[in-house]
Every structure is written in C-alpha cells, then in structure tokens.
C-alpha cells in the first residue's frame, strides 16, 4: 500500500491537561477581543500589549534554551499553547512570525551573538519580525529574487524591494532573502539577512487589502547599510535555509483554525435562536468531523517534527487540507443559513469577513499549487 502519510496518531505527553489549564487561565485574565471579526484569522491581528503579556508569562520562545530567554519546554507543550491561543481568537499577530519562524531559524543557523542579541526580545514579546521573501517579480517563483546585498567594508549594502510583507509595519526586523552574489542565477548566490528596519534607507509603505485592512506592505531598500553580523547562516546558502524553514512551518494549528471563530459564533447564535435545524446540524457535524481529523493530522505532524523527522510532505498535506477546510467553512455556513449579509449581527459580520478574506488562506505560506507539487514529488511523480 502507498504510504503518503504513515504517521501514528499522536499521544499527548503527561501533563498536557495542566499546560492547557495554564494557558486557559492566562486567556481568562487576558481575554481575546469580543468582536468575532477580530477573533477570526487572529494570527493576522496584532496587539503588541497582548504579545508582551504572553512573553512575560513564559509563552513565547517556549522551546528555546533558557540562556536565550527561552523556557526549555517540550515542543508539544508549545503546540498546546498555540492551538489554545488560536481557538480562543487571541490577537497573536504581532509576535507570530518571530516566535514561529525567525527565532527557530536563528537557533539553527545564527551565530551566538545573533542569538543573544535577538532571541531574548522575541521571547519577551517585545521584538517582532517579518519575512522578506516575495518581490514584485518573485511570488511562487521565489528563486527569481532580485533584491541585492553587495559586500562592502564592514558589512553589506542592500538595494531592491520586497512585496506582500505581512506585518512589516509592526516589525523591528526583517529576515530577508537577498541575492548576495552579483550575476548569480535562480537558487544560487542567495543569502539570508536579519535587517534592522529602522536602518536609514528602509521605507515601508502599506498595501491595503481588499477588505481595507493593513496587513501587507511593500518595503524598499535604498542603499541600506547593514553590518557583517546581519548575515544569517552561510553566505550563498539562503535557498536551502529558506526552503527548510518554510517546510517545517506549514502544519501548525493556524492552518485549520483561521475560521474557527465563525464556527463558535454560529453555534452560540443558533443555540440562542432555539429552533432545531437538522440541516444546520448536519453541516456542523461534518465540519466537526473535519476539524477533529485535521487536528489529529496536525498534531501527528508536529510530533514527527519534534522527534527529529522531516515531515515536509505531511506538512504540505496538512496545510492544503486545512486551507480547504477553513475556506469551505464560511461557504458551507452561508449555504445553510438564510441570512442577509447586512452587517447586522456579529455572526453575519464574521461570516462576511471570512467569505472575503479566506481566498488568501491558500495563497499565503505556499500556494495550493506549490503544495500539491511537493506532495506529488513525495509520491514519486516528479
């Protein structure tokens, strides 16, 4: 038999319930927004004060060594904290990228000085990061990156432009992929740099999305000087570093919980309305079955990662199925409810919001087509 996803179901470690009780107590003391529109897709909603509180309570940099401000907890405890934050709709957008991606990358490839310089702030919830990959001419075809880093005395000079940079306006640093070898092609000659966004020559401009929100930015580098120590990892090894980073961050609970606030609001609204609705029950039953299955898949993938395995195909499967689920969820609810989308109640506002923003879920973090290509390679077809 083919084994595209031969993972054993995940067994929670001892103490899972206590970890969960702890983060729930934190959330009771630091409650998420009451407006379900802000609880939906909440890892795009930034609240620096909430991130700071989370950091003070020890919920950021959870698995990192203590000498860098981390808390040396097992990876699955962090998973529990993440899924609780997302299910509750907490505004985790400010620190999300730094805690999920930038910090682990520095631990893996960074120098001792870089770790000491950045990790404690990330773990404290006071230092935020964004990812500089896409450019005007480099979307899914990331190897088309043209932004340059040219060697100069004592450091590098940057030129070029990044685009679709989520949260750059909240971030202190950008982890960017730049072409560091003049004249190099495609995947060759790329390097990663951690860029201080307050450096002279950096300009950040908003790109307002279709619902009027400011999440995306375009970031210009106009002869920006960065010191030697801004290089992350090995010069010229940016491509393998980035692809490893992307593959390992695709299977988290944010890939199936972005529409969860709508499901919660729907259940509460329908219960308040009282009347039994078998058609609605059937829709909810199917969604619950999918939610439960996706959580099993996501946890099993996280456990494989925590155990040192490479679940890049499994992660692509979780992300694609999860995106499909969180995109179909608002559509299924729209189909079964007879409601005017007139912004007259929290339910119809969160429904309308997700109907508009959910198409982006299968674009960010690797498009559906890219993910299916990764899965096809795992099946031996490419």
């Amino acid at each position, binding site marked *: 038999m083919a084994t595209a996803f031969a993972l054993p179901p995940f067994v929670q470690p001892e103490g899972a319930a206590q970890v969960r009780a702890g983060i729930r107590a934190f959330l009771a003391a630091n409650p998420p927004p009451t407006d379900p529109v802000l609880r939906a897709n909440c890892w795009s909603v930034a609240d620096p004060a909430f991130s700071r509180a989370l950091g003070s309570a020890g919920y950021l940099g959870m698995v990192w060594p203590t000498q860098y401000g981390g808390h040396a907890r097992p990876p699955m405890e962090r998973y529990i904290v993440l899924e609780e934050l997302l299910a509750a709709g907490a505004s985790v957008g400010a620190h999300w990228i730094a805690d999920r991606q930038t910090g682990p990358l520095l631990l893996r490839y960074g120098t001792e000085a870089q770790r000491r310089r950045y990790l404690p702030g990330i773990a404290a919830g006071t230092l935020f990061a964004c990812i500089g990959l896409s450019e005007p001419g480099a979307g899914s075809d990331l190897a088309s990156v043209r932004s340059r880093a040219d060697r100069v005395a004592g450091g590098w000079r940057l030129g070029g432009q990044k685009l679709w940079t989520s949260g750059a306006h909240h971030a202190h640093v950008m982890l960017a992929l730049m072409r560091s070898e003049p004249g190099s092609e495609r995947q060759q000659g790329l390097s990663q740099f951690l860029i201080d966004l307050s450096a002279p020559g950096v300009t950040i401009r908003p790109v307002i999305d279709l619902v009027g929100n400011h999440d995306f930015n375009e970031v210009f580098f106009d002869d920006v000087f960065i010191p030697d120590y801004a290089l992350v990892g090995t010069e010229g090894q940016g491509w393998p570093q980035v692809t490893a980073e992307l593959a390992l961050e695709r299977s988290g609970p944010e890939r199936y919980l972005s529409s969860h606030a709508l499901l919660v609001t729907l259940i509460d609204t329908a219960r308040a309305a009282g009347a039994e609705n078998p058609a609605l029950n059937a829709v909810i039953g199917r969604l*619950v079955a999918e939610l439960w299955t996706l959580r099993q898949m996501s946890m099993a993938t996280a456990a494989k990662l925590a155990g040192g395995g490479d679940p890049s195909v499994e992660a692509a499967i979780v992300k694609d*199925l999860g995106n499909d689920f969180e995109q179909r969820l608002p559509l299924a609810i729209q189909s079964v409810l007879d409601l005017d989308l007139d912004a007259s109640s929290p339910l119809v506002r969160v429904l309308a919001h997700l109907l508009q923003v959910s198409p982006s879920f299968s674009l960010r973090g690797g498009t559906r087509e890219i993910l299916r290509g990764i899965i096809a390679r795992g099946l031996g077809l490419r």
Partner: protein
Amino acid sequence: MSQMRQQITEAAEALFADTPDWARLAEAGFPLLLVPEDVGGTGGGIGGDWGDAFAVLRVAGANALPHPLGEAMLAAHLLARADITQPPGLTVIGSGGGQWQGDRFTGWVAAVPWGRDADHVLAAIDTGADDPVMLLLPRPTTVTPGQSPAGEPRDRLDYVATSGLALGNADHSLYGAFLRTAQSSGALDAALTLAIDHVNARIQFGKPLSKLQAVQQSLAVLAQECAATAIAGAAAAQALDRGQGAMEMMAAKLRTNMAIHKGVALAHQVHGAIGFTQDYPLHRLTRRLMGWRSEFGGDRWAELLGAATMLETGQTLWTDITRRSDQ
C-alpha cells in the same frame, strides 16, 4: 507499531493477497482478533486491540477481501464482552426491526453481509423502544438474497417466532462504521497505488502521464484524502483502546465518506477508460468503496454529531475535542 501488530499485519498481507477461502481466514484466527486470549473456544482469541484490528482491516480493504471478516471480528468481540461463548461457525453483525417477546423474535434483519452463509447474526433490533435490543439469532426462517454494488451478499433475513438470546440494549452500528472506515482506508491507499503505477507507465503526448502537472495535482489530492482517512481511523482506534470512541468513530466515518466521494472520482479520472474494465482491478476497490459509503450510517452521523455539538456552547466544542486527546 508494536511487534505484535507488525506480525499480525504481515500475516494478513501474506494471507489476504492469496485469495483465501473463509476456512483459511478462520483457521488463521483473524475472526477472533478482538477476543481476549483466555476466551473464545479452542486456543482462545488473539487478544489484539483496536489498533491491531484497524491495521488488519486496512489490509482486508486493500485486497478487496470478499469475506465478512470485519463483521465476524466485531460479532466475536461483542459476544466476548457480553460473556457469551462463541457459537460455532460464522457469526456476523446486522440491524433490523420487529418484536421480541418471550425469548422469541419475529421480524427482519436487513442487508446482512453474507447473511446466507451465517450460522448466527448478532443484530441490533429496533422494537419501537428508545434503544435497540441486541439479539443473537440463529439461521432465519427465510433468506432473501441481495447484493452490494460490488456484488457481495447483502441478504435480508426474516424470522418468525425464532428463539434468540438477548444481550442487552446497545447499538453496534458505530463499530460497523469503524469497520468500514478501516476497509476504506486500505482500499483508498490501494487505489492510489494503482493510480501511481498507471500514470508512471502510461505514455501519452510522448511522455508518461505522471509528468503532466494536472495529473500530478489530481494524485496529490487523492493522497491527501488517503492520509485523512488513515489518520482519522487510526485515531478512532486509539480512542477505542482508551475506552472512549463514540464521537471519534462517527467523525472518522464522516471524514471517510468525504474521502470516498473525492478519492474514487480521482482514481478513475487518472485511469481513463482503462480503469473502467472488468479486467482491470480498480473496480474491485472503487465499487466496494461506493457501497461502504452508505453502510453502517452514511451521513446520518453528521446530523447526530451536529446535534450533540449544539447541546453545548461554541467554546465547549473546542474544550471537548481537546479533552479527548489529553490523557
């Protein structure tokens, strides 16, 4: 995977691929997989857990095994759990309706897998009361043959004042849903394997079909559906082994039904007309999958699961799902 599970699975893979008859399956002990070692007649049961059953039934599904192995396995398990000695011959599970009075049953059991061959059926009988009564029934008064889309026996059994044994009130159809989930998981994986082999071998437009991006993307989706079914079934087995499992078996069957919907269509699509012949083995899997989709509760589990969810607040949905995995 435990060593025992690996051994049982390998034994199943070797035997089920060898077109065994029922006698060989019974001799190898597979129907008694879920019966403790100190019960179950000569030699006792195998004493496997639900994870072992899931693994073996996946192999049965992948081989389109044309025998009521899972039905017999479940009947034996439910009998052992009720402290009933295993009757000789074949016992399968089923459900039906009628009257149960003075230890006599008059009524019917519908669409019984291999009902014509069964010496006994363990049936959940709707008598009009709140819960069905579970009856161990001997051979019926009359058998009306029926068949599944794949041509497997699904027979109606009618009883007139037949003496039986009542085992209490229970509905085992959820266990049947678990059985179909496990078989479907194996059958979907086998369909994926056939599809991959086919697109690698079949040349069109001067190259293997597998080099066409549209075909790659279709098979990626099929693989996702295989993955979702496998993990849902394995997680339901894990919940059963912890003494829970009702919600999980419902959810797993629902997710499986979605996977069959998408997966069968994709497996056929990439095969073209070649997959549509009597000679090519794909239909042995896909016709069974289509039948299994409606057996032991099709999407009626959705309404039940939804109604149960609606009993509590929206937030409770999450606390309930997480409570089930935190041990």
